[in-house]
């Protein structure tokens, strides 16, 4: 069984990454690293235009069976975000929602963000949130408690503050951690395993911004047991997506 990647992006980057066909890039990388399914959010939606970006994801899902989609929503456009949720979460291939507080310029814990998360929780069971600092985990505590049936993935596991993220996960079974990050700080994965166990850790690559080899290397370095590796690389994601492990 192949891997399930819960953190991928559809779009272009202002960096020297070859290839101008985002779907082609994702399919090629998935094949190279044995990824069966990759859940993408739109870089265009995150960086510039939510509606246009989500539309691109919907089109991409028709091109390949490898991809699934997150609907991207933005707290600065609450009504429009609700419209996006209603449009796409009923379509095949969309499995959850993505929020990026930094690009939206709206921190977790802000009233606008909480209102948006409330709307998300009423429509889906899977939310992936960009997190890059301890404060993100602290702020998400209230959301996790307010919505126990909403599974929240902390993308990047708060980067160098991943121990704080792992503490949140240890106390909230609806919180999962995902570790893709240029900051491949040795020991992050092992510390999280000790705190929250492998059941609340999922694999995400951040492709095609990052090469999956990078984050896979972090898990290689952590010396996972076979059981933990299977859970992290596939089983936990399958559970969250409601598909066979």
């Amino acid at each position, binding site marked *: 069984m192949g891997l399930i990647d819960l953190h991928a992006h559809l779009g272009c*980057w202002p*960096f020297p990454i*070859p290839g101008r066909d985002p779907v082609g890039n994702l399919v090629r990388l998935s094949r*190279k690293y044995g990824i069966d399914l990759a859940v993408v959010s739109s870089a265009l939606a995150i960086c510039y235009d939510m509606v246009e970006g989500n539309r691109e994801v919907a089109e991409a899902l028709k091109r390949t069976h490898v991809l699934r989609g997150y609907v991207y929503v933005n707290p600065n456009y609450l009504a429009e975000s609700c419209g996006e949720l209603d449009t796409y979460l009923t379509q095949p291939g969309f499995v959850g929602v993505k929020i990026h507080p930094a690009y939206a310029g709206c921190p977790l814990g802000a009233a606008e963000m909480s209102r948006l998360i409330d709307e998300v929780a009423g429509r889906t069971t899977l939310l992936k949130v960009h997190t890059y600092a301890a404060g993100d985990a602290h702020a998400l505590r209230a959301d996790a408690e307010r919505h126990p049936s909403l599974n929240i993935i902390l993308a990047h596991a708060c980067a*160098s503050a991943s121990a704080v993220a792992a503490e949140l996960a240890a106390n909230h079974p609806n919180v999962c951690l995902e570790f893709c990050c240029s900051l*491949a700080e040795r*020991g992050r994965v092992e510390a999280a395993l000790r705190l929250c166990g492998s059941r609340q850790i999922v694999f995400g690559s951040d492709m095609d911004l*990052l*090469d999956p080899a990078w984050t896979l*290397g972090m898990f290689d370095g952590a010396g996972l047991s076979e059981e933990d590796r299977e859970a992290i690389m596939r089983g936990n994601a399958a559970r969250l997506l409601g598909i066979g492990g």
Partner: protein
Amino acid sequence: MTGLLDATTSFGSSPAKRADWSLPTLLAIVEKHRVERALTLSLRGKYYDFASGNIETMAACRDHPVLSPVATIDPRRYLDCLETVARCAEAGFVAFRFFPDHQVWPLEWLPFLEIAEAIARVGLPVILPGGAPGSITLAGRLLAPLGLRVLFLGVGYANMAEALTALKVYPTFYFDTHLMDTPEALEVLCRGGGEERVVFGSNAPERYFESALNMLQAAELSADQRQAISGGNLRRFLGEERSVWV
């Protein structure tokens, strides 16, 4: 992978966060991955005092031949800095590494430039951080005229464009791989003239060795390119080997 040389390692304490960056941990990583040789330095020299840090570095390298000593100097100290250049060259250090980002001093700083000139006179190379946009450009203006070989650490996607441009402009500039995490990063660098000036670096034990290693192993390179990045380029940076590409 045998014969792998690692340009970027260190050992010591982690003051800002609980972490094991000890010498035994570094040695265990080096042994596990059959690294043939790792350039290293004691973090004491970065965080506290370069004189005692350099002593610690040299002692570790004498005890463990797989390690090659890199000296460091904090230009803020001023006193003894120039003498340290000569002393370290005589003692067998293979390069000088600087931490302007951590120690908060500008590259275009007279105390540093005076040290850089002294290093150029003894013929050793310099190692600098290269992740911040503008850092390589500035080093080009300041250090290339001195003829210094410079290895930039930590170039990632945000600064890859600057590295690719520098490869065309500055023939004595090299780049380590420890933050090169984008698809085809190494292939792009090789196509851009980096096949003789990209060197493997892990930044172990601070970072996962396996992330940088996986990128090298997954890269679609010729056997010559892979061999060069794995070791030959670092030897040439150190002045130990001539180019096989000319």
